[in-house]
Protein backbone atom coordinates (compact mmCIF):
# COMPACT_ATOMS: atom_id res chain seq x y z
CA UNK A 1 0.00 0.00 0.00
CA UNK A 2 2.73 2.46 0.99
CA UNK A 3 4.74 1.83 -2.18
CA UNK A 4 1.75 2.57 -4.40
CA UNK A 5 1.04 5.76 -2.47
CA UNK A 6 4.64 7.02 -2.71
CA UNK A 7 4.39 7.57 -6.46
CA UNK A 8 1.24 9.62 -6.58
CA UNK A 9 -0.26 12.58 -4.79
CA UNK A 10 -3.33 12.13 -2.61
CA UNK A 11 -6.49 12.42 -4.69
CA UNK A 12 -7.68 15.31 -2.54
CA UNK A 13 -4.75 17.33 -3.92
CA UNK A 14 -5.42 16.90 -7.63
CA UNK A 15 -6.25 20.57 -8.14
CA UNK A 16 -9.77 19.63 -9.21
CA UNK A 17 -12.91 21.25 -7.86
CA UNK A 18 -14.03 24.76 -7.12
CA UNK A 19 -11.45 27.56 -6.64
CA UNK A 20 -8.50 25.14 -6.98
CA UNK A 21 -6.18 27.97 -8.07
CA UNK A 22 -6.24 29.25 -4.49
CA UNK A 23 -7.72 26.49 -2.29
CA UNK A 24 -5.75 23.22 -2.21
CA UNK A 25 -8.17 21.14 -0.17
CA UNK A 26 -11.21 21.02 2.10
CA UNK A 27 -11.31 18.83 5.18
CA UNK A 28 -13.89 17.78 7.78
CA UNK A 29 -13.09 15.97 11.01
CA UNK A 30 -15.63 14.45 13.42
CA UNK A 31 -14.64 13.30 16.92
CA UNK A 32 -16.63 10.46 18.52
CA UNK A 33 -16.29 8.18 21.55
CA UNK A 34 -17.95 4.89 22.41
CA UNK A 35 -20.25 4.90 25.43
CA UNK A 36 -18.99 3.08 28.51
CA UNK A 37 -15.27 3.09 27.70
CA UNK A 38 -12.43 5.22 29.07
CA UNK A 39 -11.17 7.81 26.57
CA UNK A 40 -7.83 6.91 24.88
CA UNK A 41 -5.54 9.25 26.89
CA UNK A 42 -6.35 7.27 30.06
CA UNK A 43 -7.40 3.86 28.69
CA UNK A 44 -5.40 0.74 29.56
CA UNK A 45 -4.00 -1.43 26.73
CA UNK A 46 -6.88 -3.91 27.03
CA UNK A 47 -9.55 -1.22 26.64
CA UNK A 48 -7.64 0.30 23.73
CA UNK A 49 -7.44 -3.12 22.09
CA UNK A 50 -11.20 -3.61 22.52
CA UNK A 51 -11.93 -0.21 20.96
CA UNK A 52 -9.82 -1.04 17.90
CA UNK A 53 -11.73 -4.32 17.58
CA UNK A 54 -15.18 -2.64 17.89
CA UNK A 55 -14.41 0.13 15.41
CA UNK A 56 -12.83 -2.27 12.97
CA UNK A 57 -15.94 -4.46 12.91
CA UNK A 58 -18.14 -1.37 12.54
CA UNK A 59 -16.02 -0.34 9.54
CA UNK A 60 -16.37 -3.86 8.10
CA UNK A 61 -20.16 -3.59 8.32
CA UNK A 62 -20.31 -0.12 6.75
CA UNK A 63 -21.41 0.22 3.13
CA UNK A 64 -19.60 3.56 2.76
CA UNK A 65 -16.35 1.94 3.88
CA UNK A 66 -16.66 -1.30 1.92
CA UNK A 67 -13.24 -1.07 0.31
CA UNK A 68 -10.04 0.31 1.77
CA UNK A 69 -7.26 -0.73 4.12
CA UNK A 70 -6.98 -0.95 7.89
CA UNK A 71 -3.49 -0.52 9.34
CA UNK A 72 -2.74 -1.45 12.92
CA UNK A 73 -0.17 0.54 14.91
CA UNK A 74 1.73 -2.73 15.51
CA UNK A 75 2.52 -2.95 11.82
CA UNK A 76 3.56 0.66 11.23
CA UNK A 77 7.25 1.60 11.27
CA UNK A 78 8.44 5.07 12.29
CA UNK A 79 9.19 5.84 8.62
CA UNK A 80 5.67 4.80 7.53
CA UNK A 81 4.23 6.94 10.30
CA UNK A 82 6.18 9.95 9.03
CA UNK A 83 4.87 9.15 5.55
CA UNK A 84 1.24 9.16 6.78
CA UNK A 85 1.79 12.49 8.56
CA UNK A 86 3.25 14.04 5.40
CA UNK A 87 0.17 12.87 3.53
CA UNK A 88 -2.05 14.51 6.16
CA UNK A 89 -3.79 11.19 6.87
CA UNK A 90 -2.83 11.19 10.56
CA UNK A 91 -1.97 13.83 13.15
CA UNK A 92 1.70 14.18 14.22
CA UNK A 93 0.91 12.70 17.67
CA UNK A 94 -0.97 9.66 16.38
CA UNK A 95 0.64 6.20 16.91
CA UNK A 96 3.68 7.90 18.49
CA UNK A 97 4.17 6.12 21.79
CA UNK A 98 0.82 4.45 22.45
CA UNK A 99 0.14 1.11 20.84
CA UNK A 100 -3.26 -0.42 20.14
CA UNK A 101 -4.39 2.20 17.69
CA UNK A 102 -5.41 1.85 14.07
CA UNK A 103 -6.09 3.67 10.85
CA UNK A 104 -8.60 3.08 8.08
CA UNK A 105 -7.82 4.62 4.66
CA UNK A 106 -10.21 4.55 1.71
CA UNK A 107 -8.69 3.65 -1.68
CA UNK A 108 -8.92 7.27 -2.92
CA UNK A 109 -7.58 8.59 0.43
CA UNK A 110 -10.58 10.89 0.74
CA UNK A 111 -11.57 9.16 3.97
CA UNK A 112 -9.28 8.32 6.88
CA UNK A 113 -10.45 7.14 10.29
CA UNK A 114 -8.07 7.28 13.26
CA UNK A 115 -8.91 4.87 16.07
CA UNK A 116 -7.60 5.76 19.56
CA UNK A 117 -6.14 9.12 18.76
CA UNK A 118 -7.30 11.55 21.45
CA UNK A 119 -10.84 10.21 20.96
CA UNK A 120 -11.91 6.66 20.15
CA UNK A 121 -12.96 7.59 16.61
CA UNK A 122 -11.81 10.48 14.44
CA UNK A 123 -13.51 10.52 11.04
CA UNK A 124 -11.67 12.61 8.43
CA UNK A 125 -13.11 13.45 5.05
CA UNK A 126 -11.03 15.32 2.45
CA UNK A 127 -11.62 16.81 -1.01
CA UNK A 128 -9.67 18.78 -3.56
CA UNK A 129 -10.52 22.48 -3.95
CA UNK A 130 -13.24 24.32 -2.06
CA UNK A 131 -15.89 21.67 -1.47
CA UNK A 132 -16.81 21.83 2.19
CA UNK A 133 -20.48 20.81 1.87
CA UNK A 134 -19.80 17.59 -0.07
CA UNK A 135 -16.97 16.80 2.30
CA UNK A 136 -19.26 17.36 5.29
CA UNK A 137 -22.01 15.19 3.80
CA UNK A 138 -19.55 12.36 3.20
CA UNK A 139 -18.35 12.55 6.84
CA UNK A 140 -21.98 12.58 8.05
CA UNK A 141 -22.84 9.46 6.03
CA UNK A 142 -19.87 7.63 7.54
CA UNK A 143 -20.88 8.83 11.02
CA UNK A 144 -24.41 7.44 10.45
CA UNK A 145 -22.99 4.17 9.19
CA UNK A 146 -20.71 3.73 12.20
CA UNK A 147 -23.52 4.77 14.57
CA UNK A 148 -25.48 1.76 13.30
CA UNK A 149 -22.95 -0.50 14.98
CA UNK A 150 -21.45 1.69 17.71
CA UNK A 151 -23.20 3.55 20.54
CA UNK A 152 -21.53 6.94 20.71
CA UNK A 153 -21.14 8.96 23.91
CA UNK A 154 -23.77 11.68 23.75
CA UNK A 155 -25.48 14.07 26.15
CA UNK A 156 -28.71 15.90 25.28
CA UNK A 157 -27.27 19.23 26.54
CA UNK A 158 -23.61 18.89 25.57
CA UNK A 159 -23.96 16.83 22.38
CA UNK A 160 -21.16 14.44 21.40
CA UNK A 161 -18.70 13.97 24.25
CA UNK A 162 -14.98 14.24 23.60
CA UNK A 163 -11.79 13.92 25.58
CA UNK A 164 -10.87 17.58 25.11
CA UNK A 165 -13.56 20.14 26.06
CA UNK A 166 -12.67 22.20 22.97
CA UNK A 167 -14.24 19.51 20.72
CA UNK A 168 -17.46 18.84 22.65
CA UNK A 169 -20.82 19.23 20.89
CA UNK A 170 -20.52 18.61 17.18
CA UNK A 171 -16.96 17.26 17.44
CA UNK A 172 -16.54 19.00 14.11
CA UNK A 173 -13.47 20.71 12.74
CA UNK A 174 -13.94 22.09 9.24
CA UNK A 175 -10.79 23.39 7.57
CA UNK A 176 -9.35 24.47 4.29
CA UNK A 177 -5.75 24.57 3.04
CA UNK A 178 -5.24 27.80 1.12
CA UNK A 179 -2.39 29.35 -0.88
CA UNK A 180 -2.15 33.07 -0.16
CA UNK A 181 0.99 33.98 -2.11
CA UNK A 182 -0.52 37.22 -3.45
CA UNK A 183 -1.49 38.56 -0.05
CA UNK A 184 1.96 37.70 1.34
CA UNK A 185 3.68 39.53 -1.55
CA UNK A 186 1.51 42.62 -1.21
CA UNK A 187 2.09 42.44 2.59
CA UNK A 188 -1.65 42.50 3.26
CA UNK A 189 -1.57 39.06 4.88
CA UNK A 190 -1.28 40.36 8.47
CA UNK A 191 -4.45 42.38 8.27
CA UNK A 192 -6.31 39.54 6.51
CA UNK A 193 -5.27 37.06 9.24
CA UNK A 194 -6.30 39.59 11.86
CA UNK A 195 -9.70 39.84 10.17
CA UNK A 196 -10.07 36.02 10.04
CA UNK A 197 -9.22 35.71 13.74
CA UNK A 198 -11.80 38.33 14.64
CA UNK A 199 -14.41 36.18 12.89
CA UNK A 200 -13.67 33.34 15.32
CA UNK A 201 -11.57 31.19 13.00
CA UNK A 202 -8.06 29.82 13.58
CA UNK A 203 -5.15 30.20 11.12
CA UNK A 204 -2.25 27.76 11.18
CA UNK A 205 0.68 26.66 8.99
CA UNK A 206 0.82 23.64 6.65
CA UNK A 207 1.18 20.99 9.37
CA UNK A 208 -1.39 22.29 11.84
CA UNK A 209 -1.02 23.57 15.36
CA UNK A 210 2.10 25.55 16.12
CA UNK A 211 3.73 25.22 12.71
CA UNK A 212 5.49 27.86 10.63
CA UNK A 213 4.21 29.17 7.36
CA UNK A 214 5.98 27.32 4.58
CA UNK A 215 5.18 27.93 0.96
CA UNK A 216 2.58 30.57 1.85
CA UNK A 217 0.16 27.77 2.71
CA UNK A 218 -2.34 28.43 5.47
CA UNK A 219 -4.89 26.23 7.21
CA UNK A 220 -8.06 27.97 8.31
CA UNK A 221 -10.58 26.27 10.60
CA UNK A 222 -13.39 26.83 13.08
CA UNK A 223 -12.43 27.47 16.70
CA UNK A 224 -15.59 26.40 18.52
CA UNK A 225 -17.69 23.25 18.19
CA UNK A 226 -20.64 23.76 20.56
CA UNK A 227 -23.79 25.87 20.20
CA UNK A 228 -23.97 25.88 16.40
CA UNK A 229 -25.02 23.16 13.98
CA UNK A 230 -22.56 21.34 11.70
CA UNK A 231 -24.15 23.03 8.70
CA UNK A 232 -23.84 26.45 10.31
CA UNK A 233 -20.16 26.02 11.20
CA UNK A 234 -19.30 24.69 7.74
CA UNK A 235 -21.33 27.29 5.82
CA UNK A 236 -19.72 30.11 7.74
CA UNK A 237 -16.21 28.78 6.97
CA UNK A 238 -17.16 28.49 3.30
CA UNK A 239 -18.51 32.03 3.24
CA UNK A 240 -15.40 33.51 4.85
CA UNK A 241 -13.16 31.42 2.57
CA UNK A 242 -14.89 32.91 -0.49
CA UNK A 243 -14.18 36.35 0.94
CA UNK A 244 -10.48 35.51 1.47
CA UNK A 245 -10.27 34.15 -2.11
CA UNK A 246 -11.64 37.47 -3.32
CA UNK A 247 -8.93 39.34 -1.34
CA UNK A 248 -6.27 36.99 -2.72
CA UNK A 249 -7.47 37.38 -6.31
CA UNK A 250 -7.55 41.16 -5.97
CA UNK A 251 -3.97 41.18 -4.70
CA UNK A 252 -2.93 38.91 -7.61
CA UNK A 253 -4.61 41.28 -10.08
CA UNK A 254 -2.85 44.22 -8.51
CA UNK A 255 0.52 42.47 -8.71
CA UNK A 256 -0.12 41.82 -12.41
CA UNK A 257 -1.04 45.41 -13.20
CA UNK A 258 1.46 47.18 -10.95
CA UNK A 259 4.50 44.92 -10.87
CA UNK A 260 4.12 42.47 -13.73
CA UNK A 261 7.82 42.28 -14.63
CA UNK A 262 9.00 41.91 -11.04
CA UNK A 263 6.46 39.14 -10.37
CA UNK A 264 7.22 37.34 -13.63
CA UNK A 265 10.94 37.57 -12.81
CA UNK A 266 10.40 36.09 -9.33
CA UNK A 267 8.32 33.24 -10.76
CA UNK A 268 10.73 32.44 -13.61
CA UNK A 269 13.73 32.53 -11.26
CA UNK A 270 11.96 30.10 -8.90
CA UNK A 271 11.20 27.84 -11.88
CA UNK A 272 14.82 28.13 -13.05
CA UNK A 273 16.18 27.02 -9.68
CA UNK A 274 13.72 24.11 -9.40
CA UNK A 275 14.48 23.04 -12.96
CA UNK A 276 18.27 23.02 -12.53
CA UNK A 277 19.30 22.97 -8.85
CA UNK A 278 21.35 20.01 -7.59
CA UNK A 279 20.65 20.50 -3.85
CA UNK A 280 17.29 21.55 -2.40
CA UNK A 281 16.08 21.63 1.23
CA UNK A 282 12.38 21.00 2.03
CA UNK A 283 11.88 24.59 3.13
CA UNK A 284 13.43 25.98 -0.05
CA UNK A 285 11.35 23.67 -2.25
CA UNK A 286 8.14 24.72 -0.52
CA UNK A 287 8.91 28.40 -1.00
CA UNK A 288 9.98 28.04 -4.64
CA UNK A 289 6.95 25.86 -5.39
CA UNK A 290 4.79 28.61 -3.94
CA UNK A 291 6.13 31.05 -6.55
CA UNK A 292 5.68 28.49 -9.35
CA UNK A 293 2.15 27.71 -8.16
CA UNK A 294 1.36 31.42 -8.35
CA UNK A 295 2.89 31.49 -11.84
CA UNK A 296 0.69 28.60 -12.96
CA UNK A 297 -2.42 30.24 -11.52
CA UNK A 298 -1.60 33.57 -13.18
CA UNK A 299 -0.82 31.81 -16.50
CA UNK A 300 2.68 33.28 -16.44
CA UNK A 301 4.17 29.77 -16.48
CA UNK A 302 2.07 27.63 -18.77
CA UNK A 303 4.26 24.53 -18.77
CA UNK A 304 3.58 23.66 -15.11
CA UNK A 305 0.12 22.75 -13.85
CA UNK A 306 -1.17 23.44 -10.36
CA UNK A 307 -1.70 19.69 -9.97
CA UNK A 308 2.04 19.08 -10.58
CA UNK A 309 2.95 21.66 -7.95
CA UNK A 310 0.54 20.07 -5.43
CA UNK A 311 2.04 16.66 -6.20
CA UNK A 312 5.60 17.94 -5.64
CA UNK A 313 4.58 19.56 -2.34
CA UNK A 314 3.73 16.09 -1.02
CA UNK A 315 6.33 13.93 -2.81
CA UNK A 316 9.33 16.12 -1.95
CA UNK A 317 8.88 15.67 1.81
CA UNK A 318 11.51 13.54 3.61
CA UNK A 319 9.60 10.28 4.21
CA UNK A 320 8.04 10.33 0.72
CA UNK A 321 11.39 10.97 -0.87
CA UNK A 322 12.99 8.01 0.90
CA UNK A 323 10.14 5.70 0.01
CA UNK A 324 10.30 6.92 -3.58
CA UNK A 325 14.04 6.21 -3.67
CA UNK A 326 13.57 2.95 -1.79
CA UNK A 327 16.42 3.65 0.65
CA UNK A 328 16.97 5.57 3.86
CA UNK A 329 18.87 8.78 3.18
CA UNK A 330 20.87 11.17 5.34
CA UNK A 331 19.54 14.76 5.37
CA UNK A 332 22.32 15.82 2.96
CA UNK A 333 21.56 13.00 0.50
CA UNK A 334 17.87 13.81 0.80
CA UNK A 335 18.50 17.36 -0.45
CA UNK A 336 20.29 15.91 -3.49
CA UNK A 337 17.54 13.33 -4.13
CA UNK A 338 14.89 16.02 -3.71
CA UNK A 339 16.54 18.23 -6.33
CA UNK A 340 16.63 15.25 -8.72
CA UNK A 341 12.96 14.38 -8.12
CA UNK A 342 11.96 17.98 -8.82
CA UNK A 343 14.16 18.19 -11.96
CA UNK A 344 12.82 14.89 -13.30
CA UNK A 345 9.20 15.78 -12.61
CA UNK A 346 9.50 19.16 -14.30
CA UNK A 347 11.47 17.68 -17.23
CA UNK A 348 8.76 15.04 -17.85
CA UNK A 349 6.29 17.77 -18.64
CA UNK A 350 5.48 18.35 -22.30
Amino acid at each position, binding site marked *: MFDQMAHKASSWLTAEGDEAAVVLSSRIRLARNIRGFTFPPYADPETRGNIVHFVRSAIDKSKELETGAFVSSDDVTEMQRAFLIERHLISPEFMRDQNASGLYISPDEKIAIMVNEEDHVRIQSMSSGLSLMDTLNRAMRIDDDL*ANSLEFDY*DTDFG*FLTSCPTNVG*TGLRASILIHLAGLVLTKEIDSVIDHINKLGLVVRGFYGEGTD*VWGNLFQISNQTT*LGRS*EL*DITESLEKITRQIIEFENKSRDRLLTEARDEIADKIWRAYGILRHARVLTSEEVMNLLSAVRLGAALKILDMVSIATVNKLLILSQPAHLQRYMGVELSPGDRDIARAKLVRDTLAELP
Partner: protein
Amino acid sequence: MLCEECRKQEATVHFSQMVNNQRVVMNLCGTCAKRRGFSNPLKNIPFPLSDFLTSMVSESATKVDGQLTELTCPVCKLSYDTFAKTGRLGCGNCFEAYRQPLADLLRKIHGSNLHRGKRLRGGALVMEPLKEEARLKDELKKAIEAEDFERAAQLRDMVKELQEKLQAVTDV
Protein backbone atom coordinates in the same frame (compact mmCIF):
# COMPACT_ATOMS: atom_id res chain seq x y z
CA MET B 1 21.96 38.48 21.22
CA LEU B 2 21.83 42.08 20.03
CA CYS B 3 20.15 43.20 16.84
CA GLU B 4 22.64 43.10 13.94
CA GLU B 5 21.26 46.32 12.52
CA CYS B 6 20.86 48.83 15.35
CA ARG B 7 23.04 46.96 17.89
CA LYS B 8 20.88 48.37 20.64
CA GLN B 9 17.87 46.15 21.17
CA GLU B 10 17.65 42.40 21.77
CA ALA B 11 17.25 40.43 18.51
CA THR B 12 13.87 38.73 18.48
CA VAL B 13 13.38 38.03 14.78
CA HIS B 14 15.65 35.42 13.20
CA PHE B 15 15.16 35.64 9.48
CA SER B 16 16.76 32.99 7.30
CA GLN B 17 17.12 33.10 3.56
CA MET B 18 18.82 31.02 0.88
CA VAL B 19 21.34 33.09 -1.06
CA ASN B 20 23.44 31.24 -3.65
CA ASN B 21 22.66 28.01 -1.87
CA GLN B 22 24.02 29.37 1.43
CA ARG B 23 21.74 29.82 4.37
CA VAL B 24 22.01 33.42 5.54
CA VAL B 25 20.54 34.19 8.93
CA MET B 26 19.80 37.71 10.09
CA ASN B 27 19.10 38.43 13.73
CA LEU B 28 17.09 41.58 14.13
CA CYS B 29 15.07 43.35 16.78
CA GLY B 30 11.35 43.78 16.23
CA THR B 31 11.66 47.41 15.11
CA CYS B 32 14.42 46.83 12.56
CA ALA B 33 12.73 43.67 11.24
CA LYS B 34 9.52 45.58 10.68
CA ARG B 35 11.37 48.42 8.97
CA ARG B 36 13.01 45.95 6.59
CA GLY B 37 9.66 44.35 5.91
CA PHE B 38 10.33 40.96 7.55
CA SER B 39 7.49 39.60 9.54
CA ASN B 40 5.96 36.28 10.43
CA PRO B 41 2.28 36.55 9.58
CA LEU B 42 1.34 34.05 12.29
CA LYS B 43 3.26 35.69 15.14
CA ASN B 44 0.48 37.85 16.49
CA ILE B 45 -2.35 35.39 16.32
CA PRO B 46 -3.80 34.00 19.52
CA PHE B 47 -2.55 30.60 20.62
CA PRO B 48 -4.90 27.70 19.96
CA LEU B 49 -7.55 27.35 22.63
CA SER B 50 -6.09 24.11 23.91
CA ASP B 51 -3.04 26.03 25.21
CA PHE B 52 -5.25 28.11 27.47
CA LEU B 53 -7.37 25.18 28.45
CA THR B 54 -5.62 23.95 31.57
CA SER B 55 -5.56 27.42 33.10
CA MET B 56 -9.26 27.83 32.31
CA VAL B 57 -10.06 24.48 33.91
CA SER B 58 -8.15 25.28 37.11
CA GLU B 59 -9.82 28.68 37.23
CA SER B 60 -13.31 27.19 37.14
CA ALA B 61 -12.23 24.74 39.87
CA THR B 62 -10.88 27.31 42.32
CA LYS B 63 -14.00 29.43 41.89
CA VAL B 64 -16.06 26.74 43.62
CA ASP B 65 -14.08 27.10 46.89
CA GLY B 66 -11.68 24.24 46.40
CA GLN B 67 -14.24 21.49 46.94
CA LEU B 68 -14.19 20.58 43.28
CA THR B 69 -10.60 19.50 43.31
CA GLU B 70 -11.65 16.62 45.57
CA LEU B 71 -14.28 15.42 43.09
CA THR B 72 -13.65 12.16 41.31
CA CYS B 73 -15.57 10.53 38.48
CA PRO B 74 -17.07 7.33 39.96
CA VAL B 75 -16.71 5.44 36.68
CA CYS B 76 -13.18 6.13 35.40
CA LYS B 77 -11.83 7.44 38.75
CA LEU B 78 -10.35 10.55 37.12
CA SER B 79 -10.10 13.37 39.67
CA TYR B 80 -11.04 16.92 38.73
CA ASP B 81 -7.54 17.83 39.83
CA THR B 82 -6.00 15.60 37.15
CA PHE B 83 -8.39 17.00 34.55
CA ALA B 84 -7.28 20.51 35.55
CA LYS B 85 -3.66 19.49 34.90
CA THR B 86 -4.10 17.56 31.65
CA GLY B 87 -7.11 19.33 30.12
CA ARG B 88 -8.44 15.91 29.02
CA LEU B 89 -11.56 14.20 30.42
CA GLY B 90 -11.53 10.51 31.29
CA CYS B 91 -14.84 9.11 30.02
CA GLY B 92 -18.40 10.02 29.08
CA ASN B 93 -19.48 9.84 32.70
CA CYS B 94 -17.06 12.65 33.69
CA PHE B 95 -19.59 15.00 32.02
CA GLU B 96 -22.18 13.79 34.55
CA ALA B 97 -19.78 13.90 37.51
CA TYR B 98 -18.59 17.46 36.73
CA ARG B 99 -21.75 18.74 35.02
CA GLN B 100 -21.86 22.21 36.60
CA PRO B 101 -18.19 23.20 36.37
CA LEU B 102 -18.09 21.76 32.85
CA ALA B 103 -21.17 23.71 31.81
CA ASP B 104 -19.35 26.87 32.97
CA LEU B 105 -16.12 25.87 31.25
CA LEU B 106 -17.83 24.98 27.96
CA ARG B 107 -19.63 28.31 27.95
CA LYS B 108 -16.29 30.06 28.39
CA ILE B 109 -14.69 28.10 25.57
CA HIS B 110 -17.52 28.02 23.02
CA GLY B 111 -19.72 30.91 24.10
CA SER B 112 -22.51 28.36 24.59
CA ASN B 113 -23.06 25.15 26.51
CA LEU B 114 -26.04 23.83 24.61
CA HIS B 115 -25.61 21.52 21.63
CA ARG B 116 -27.54 22.59 18.53
CA GLY B 117 -26.09 20.16 16.03
CA LYS B 118 -26.71 16.61 14.93
CA ARG B 119 -28.61 14.43 17.38
CA LEU B 120 -27.79 10.89 18.28
CA ARG B 121 -30.08 8.55 16.38
CA GLY B 122 -31.78 5.50 17.83
CA GLY B 123 -32.12 4.58 21.48
CA ALA B 124 -34.20 6.45 24.02
CA LEU B 125 -33.94 9.74 22.14
CA VAL B 126 -36.17 8.46 19.38
CA MET B 127 -38.00 5.59 21.08
CA GLU B 128 -39.71 7.59 23.83
CA PRO B 129 -41.21 10.25 21.55
CA LEU B 130 -42.28 7.50 19.12
CA LYS B 131 -44.17 5.65 21.86
CA GLU B 132 -45.80 8.91 22.92
CA GLU B 133 -46.80 9.64 19.32
CA ALA B 134 -48.46 6.21 19.02
CA ARG B 135 -50.36 6.77 22.27
CA LEU B 136 -51.60 10.22 21.20
CA LYS B 137 -52.71 8.96 17.78
CA ASP B 138 -54.63 6.18 19.45
CA GLU B 139 -56.38 8.66 21.74
CA LEU B 140 -57.10 10.94 18.75
CA LYS B 141 -58.81 8.10 16.89
CA LYS B 142 -60.98 7.40 19.94
CA ALA B 143 -61.86 11.12 20.32
CA ILE B 144 -63.00 11.29 16.69
CA GLU B 145 -65.07 8.16 17.10
CA ALA B 146 -66.70 9.70 20.18
CA GLU B 147 -67.25 12.92 18.17
CA ASP B 148 -65.37 14.92 20.83
CA PHE B 149 -63.94 17.34 18.24
CA GLU B 150 -62.59 19.83 20.73
CA ARG B 151 -60.43 17.13 22.31
CA ALA B 152 -59.50 15.79 18.83
CA ALA B 153 -58.23 19.21 17.71
CA GLN B 154 -56.18 19.45 20.89
CA LEU B 155 -54.69 16.01 20.33
CA ARG B 156 -53.96 16.73 16.67
CA ASP B 157 -51.91 19.78 17.76
CA MET B 158 -50.07 17.67 20.31
CA VAL B 159 -49.20 15.06 17.67
CA LYS B 160 -48.02 17.76 15.30
CA GLU B 161 -45.83 19.34 17.97
CA LEU B 162 -44.33 15.98 18.86
CA GLN B 163 -43.61 15.18 15.22
CA GLU B 164 -41.78 18.47 14.84
CA LYS B 165 -39.68 17.62 17.89
CA LEU B 166 -38.97 14.17 16.47
CA GLN B 167 -37.94 15.74 13.19
CA ALA B 168 -35.47 17.94 15.06
CA VAL B 169 -34.06 14.90 16.86
CA THR B 170 -33.55 12.87 13.69
CA ASP B 171 -32.47 15.71 11.41
CA VAL B 172 -28.81 16.47 10.90
